[in-house]
């Protein structure tokens, strides 16, 4: 047994209103640069829908993820090592930028600088690739809220596996949102496909990252990821992906997408797993057994044997405590209501989802029946094959049983808590019907519905003090020009010039942490004042660039 910790996320789809705040804040933080204009590390898809990039779930077409060979071994679907190297000059499975969408901007300047004329000036869309005028015909969420879905939804790879009847009727039946980030898989196909070995899984928290210095732009990761969550920066020629906001996670803070989620539907926490068991679990024969196989890889953080093994691996006590308090562990292992996205890709994804009950509730409400009555809901779950089958196509390789079990627990909670809210005695039979007790049902209700910040995010800080001993290094983004800026030795830290960034340095407390009593930190540009230290009172010298001498070139 090799105990490893994985920072994981769970999203409660019932609460997602599809506002795209997560996507926008993520974009502002990570991908507002040339070369990745088209990339959304976080995106929100309307389901049913074709997704982003278009039809990414169709692995017959894109050849992402793993397959099990006849001899029971795992192989990348696109081919083995030799085949990868032979195709290195032309990746046959690479999506082109149009499969995502051609990035554009608007010619906003025209609105203010257009010469006087008879027509109102307009800001025409301009391609960011060619600079030419373009017609916008597709984007990252073109079929948002089923917009235009009568044209495109038939291309949804999951709908395609269902009957004709569904295709005709789905619009009247259900719709929900699916926010997606990198899955930070336990068995990542992107890492396995990288010829340069530049992609890796972090030992400490399992976050999958790209070493930008080591990446040589072979693009195999882009096609190998079945979720298409590795993006090719067409400007720098390097791969980029969701980092699970590791600079924040290292400080014990939630990712940007989680922090800004208005529905408060994201959960972050640790999952302990047995790294030695991953390959066997991912190689299991039947697709329907993959969910249980992955559950089997997780370790019980309360088990004394697991704790001893984790400590033997050097895991600190606060991490073990965090694993015990993890909302992820509760939702996956205790309540068993969270499910992985497309386990059949065999990558062992670690961003899981609580399937939405709302399609069922919506249908029940329209029939004038009591949509908070447990028996009505249970019957509806059994009867509404279409949404349940569709959810099974997403979350359990087509096996409806785990989805039904999960939905019934949500339905039971809804019904059980109504009685309590109305001051009626709690009906323990409802809890028992789904194999739970009233106590766990209320605990689950607190986690899902009340969803306190400190319950949603249980993130232990990275142990930077050990890193400092080894490498004089605090934040790994402290490279010059990196988002951490400054870097060790650039500014005087609170412990003197020789130390690195402050341990708990954040934007909000940067001034106090770096400002040694009475000593102003030096700006990085000579002659300029460091605006981080500006109190806003007066105009210090160096606030503005020095005036150019009259003779100097403009």
């Amino acid at each position, binding site marked *: 047994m090799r105990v490893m910790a994985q920072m994981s996320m769970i999203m409660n789809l019932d609460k997602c209103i599809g506002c795209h705040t997560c996507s926008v804040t993520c974009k502002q933080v990570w991908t*507002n*640069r*040339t*070369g990745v*204009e088209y990339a959304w590390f976080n995106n929100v898809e309307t389901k049913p829908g074709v997704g982003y990039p278009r039809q990414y779930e169709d692995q017959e077409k894109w050849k992402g993820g793993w397959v099990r060979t006849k001899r029971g071994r795992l192989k990348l679907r696109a081919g083995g*090592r030799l085949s990868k*190297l032979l195709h290195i*000059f032309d*990746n*046959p499975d*690479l*999506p*082109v930028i149009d499969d995502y969408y051609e990035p554009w*901007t608007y*010619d906003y300047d*025209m609105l203010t600088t257009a010469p006087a004329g008879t027509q109102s000036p307009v800001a025409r869309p*301009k391609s*960011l*690739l*060619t*600079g030419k005028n373009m017609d916008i015909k597709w984007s990252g969420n073109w079929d948002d809220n089923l917009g235009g879905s009568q044209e495109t939804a038939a291309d949804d790879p999951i709908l395609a596996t269902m009957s004709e009847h569904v295709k005709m009727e789905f619009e009247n039946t259900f719709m929900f949102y699916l926010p997606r980030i990198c899955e930070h898989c336990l*068995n*990542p196909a992107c*890492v396995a496909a*990288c*010829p*340069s*070995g530049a992609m*890796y*899984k*972090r*030992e*400490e928290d399992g976050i999958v990252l790209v*070493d*930008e*210095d080591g*990446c*040589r*732009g*072979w*693009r195999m990761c882009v096609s190998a990821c079945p979720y298409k969550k590795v993006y*090719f*920066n*067409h*400007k720098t020629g*390097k791969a980029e992906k969701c980092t699970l906001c590791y600079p924040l996670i*290292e400080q014990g803070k939630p990712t940007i997408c989680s922090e800004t989620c208005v529905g408060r539907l994201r959960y972050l926490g640790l999952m302990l797993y047995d790294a030695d068991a991953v390959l066997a679990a991912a190689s299991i024969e039947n697709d329907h057994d993959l969910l249980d196989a992955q559950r089997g890889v997780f370790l019980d953080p309360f088990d004394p044997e697991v704790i001893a093994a984790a400590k033997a691996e050097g895991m600190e006590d606060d991490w073990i405590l965090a694993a015990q308090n993890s909302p992820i562990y509760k939702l996956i292992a205790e309540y068993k209501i969270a499910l992985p996205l497309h386990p059949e890709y065999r990558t062992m994804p670690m961003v899981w989802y609580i399937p939405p009950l709302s399609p069922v509730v919506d249908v029940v409400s329209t029939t004038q029946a009591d949509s908070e009555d447990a028996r009505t809901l249970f019957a509806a779950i059994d009867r509404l094959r279409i949404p349940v089958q569709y959810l099974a196509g997403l979350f359990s390789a087509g096996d409806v049983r785990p989805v039904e079990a999960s939905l019934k627990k949500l339905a039971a909670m809804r019904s059980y808590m109504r009685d309590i809210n109305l001051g009626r005695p709690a009906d323990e039979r409802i809890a028992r019907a789904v194999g739970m007790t009233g106590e766990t049902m209320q605990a689950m209700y607190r986690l899902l519905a009340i969803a306190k910040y400190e319950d949603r995010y249980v993130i232990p800080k*990275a142990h930077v003090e*050990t890193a400092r001993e*080894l*490498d004089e*290094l605090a934040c*790994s983004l*402290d*490279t*010059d*020009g990196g988002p951490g800026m400054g*870097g*060790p*030795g650039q500014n005087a830290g609170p412990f003197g010039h020789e130390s690195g960034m402050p341990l708990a340095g954040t934007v909000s407390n940067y001034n106090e942490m770096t400002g040694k009593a009475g000593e102003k930190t030096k700006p990085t540009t000579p002659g300029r004042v460091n605006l981080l230290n500006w109190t806003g009172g007066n105009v210090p010298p160096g606030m503005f660039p020095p005036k150019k001498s009259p003779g100097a070139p403009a």
Partner: protein
Amino acid sequence: MTPLDFLLWVAFPYIAAATFVVGHILRYRFDQFGWTSRSSQTYENRLLRWGSPMFHYGMLMVIGGHVVGLFIPKPWLEFFGVTEHIYHLGATWMGSVAAVLTIAGLIILIVRRRLVTRVHLATTVMDKVMYIFLGGTILFGTIATVLHQVLGAGYDYRGSISPWIRSLWGLQPDPSLMSDVPFFFQLHVLTATALFLLWPFTRLVHVFSAPIGYIWRPYVIYRSRDTHKGSGARPVKRGWEKAELPNVRVSPRADEPSRPSRSRTNIRR
């Protein structure tokens, strides 16, 4: 030996070799982030999927042929029974196949680079310079081969060019060997030398990243955040600038004086 001979066949090759070696070391040390093939496959896939494998596989054959012809002394091959006649036939025929593949691939790639706007706009000045010398080297080499080996009586470069190159490696340069070499062979050697000089400053560096180790390494790689290498070791790198239009002037009307073009903030090296 004239001063020109010395310049072309001793000084120039050594300068190119020194630049090649030192340039690669410096670039590897200071510009890991820029070390990439800068693929344009995401812009255009159809033409590339024909041109790129043709060019690259052709090029691998060409390089293999050059290694045999230039670095294995004639008596060694003859020891294994490869006579001048057999060598000539083999080199000419296999060389021609490789040349056809390479040239056809290169033409597809260059046409694509020029005609597909997205790819054209992503082409740097250094790319264009590199294309001139790469294309020139291949062109002159092909002309020399066709003129002398296919149509002509056959020129035994293993008696002149090959010993000259080995004399360079042995640090006993003998420029006189090159004086009487046919013109197009000379031109081929000179453009190739210039290409080696430019090499470390172009995207050609990706040749030295051929990921052979992928065959043996474990699939999933784990790295500790503590072994993070090079923190603070490198200065500001390009590629982290804001999104903006490609560097083409977008003027709303032809008769209107164009606005000052947007300044490009990215640093080209």
